[in-house]
């Protein structure tokens, strides 16, 4: 399968700085989108973006193209860093303007046709009850913690844990079937 981002990451692993710059040009808008959505503040997001690409360069040798697409690997690094920052003590923005309109789910649906992974996820996602699907999306896209989710859905923490754990395992079963 054609994956130019994966090719650029492989070149970064070989210390190709031109490839690193090309990778930044081609992927920074998407990663900035991830960081801005989760960290919610431009200065923090820009600071985090620098750290993300620093990690990308340092870890490029660990990327395994047989395990997933290049962009998926990059976004995982960005999300991981954003969650680190959120959990390390920034105030949670659990409900700042978080109406479902921001989830851009309808737009996402239309772009899913081209990508197998996304389409399968959309199908499996639809098998979840809507409140549980919202919780998974709230965590993945907005960086909400268990505490945030329990508050948002007005359920005890342990209930949210059970919901999410079971929903995630159900998603996995569906994705692997």
């Amino acid at each position: 399968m054609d994956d130019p981002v994966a090719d650029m990451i492989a070149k970064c692993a070989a210390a190709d700085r031109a490839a690193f710059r090309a990778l930044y040009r081609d992927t920074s808008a998407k990663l900035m989108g991830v960081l801005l959505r989760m960290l919610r503040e431009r200065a923090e997001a820009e600071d985090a973006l620098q750290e993300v690409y620093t990690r990308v360069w340092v870890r490029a040798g660990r990327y395994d193209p047989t395990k997933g697409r290049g962009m998926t690997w990059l976004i995982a690094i960005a999300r991981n860093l954003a969650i680190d920052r959120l959990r390390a003590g920034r105030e949670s923005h659990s409900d700042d303007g978080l109406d479902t309109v921001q989830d851009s789910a309808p737009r996402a649906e239309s772009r899913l046709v081209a990508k197998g992974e996304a389409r399968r996820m959309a199908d499996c996602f639809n098998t979840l009850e809507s409140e549980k699907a919202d919780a998974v999306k709230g965590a993945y896209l907005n960086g909400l913690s268990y505490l945030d989710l329990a508050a948002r859905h007005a359920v005890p923490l342990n209930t949210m844990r059970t919901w999410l754990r079971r929903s995630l395992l159900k998603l996995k079963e569906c994705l692997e079937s």
Partner: protein
Amino acid sequence: MTDAPLSPREEDDALAAEYVLGVLDLAERAVAEARLKRDADFAALVADWEVKLGGLNDGFDEAPAPNLLPQIEARLFPKPAPAAKPRHGFSFGWLTGALVAAVLALASIATLAPPRPELVAQLATADNRLAYRVTHFGDTLQVTRVAGVPAVAGQVHELWIIAPNANPVSLGLLEDQPLVITYPAPPEGFTFAVSVEPTGGSPTGAPTGPVILTATVGAA
């Protein structure tokens, strides 16, 4: 859906998913990260979840990103320090394209430090009652308390750095003022820790009191 408890394998799988999703609190996250480093099976579960949950990535819109390559490259490919290091900020705002390359070449003559200190680690309690920010600029490491208060009378917070598989090394005491020391930027995998020691610091050269905060550079 049954209420049967999860099997050990399902527990691990769920934990890996929770870690990738990001819902764990700071303490739980630190435990998962430590496990990630030493348990290859768990690491494989995490990698698998990153791909599976990656199916949601279309939900992220793109956003304009400024060209931060000069700052990123200054971190990754620092020029060796000449005798004198000018500390004035140098803004890349007016440079474009090819000019940036020419200026970076000139940097071997006069070191151009990135205009901002870089955040190296954040040490904070889950409720942010106590937090320290570790930044690095040029050849200086600075540790600033951004939340909470110093230790009570008779005690002091001491900062340690722990290289992988090495013993903690004291970097100094965290009192009223920020700690500023000459120190290289610590690589990924090094861990900062704060312990509570008697006034004056640990008498033994190793932490003697409880470790209340930790943060690993470039964690996971």
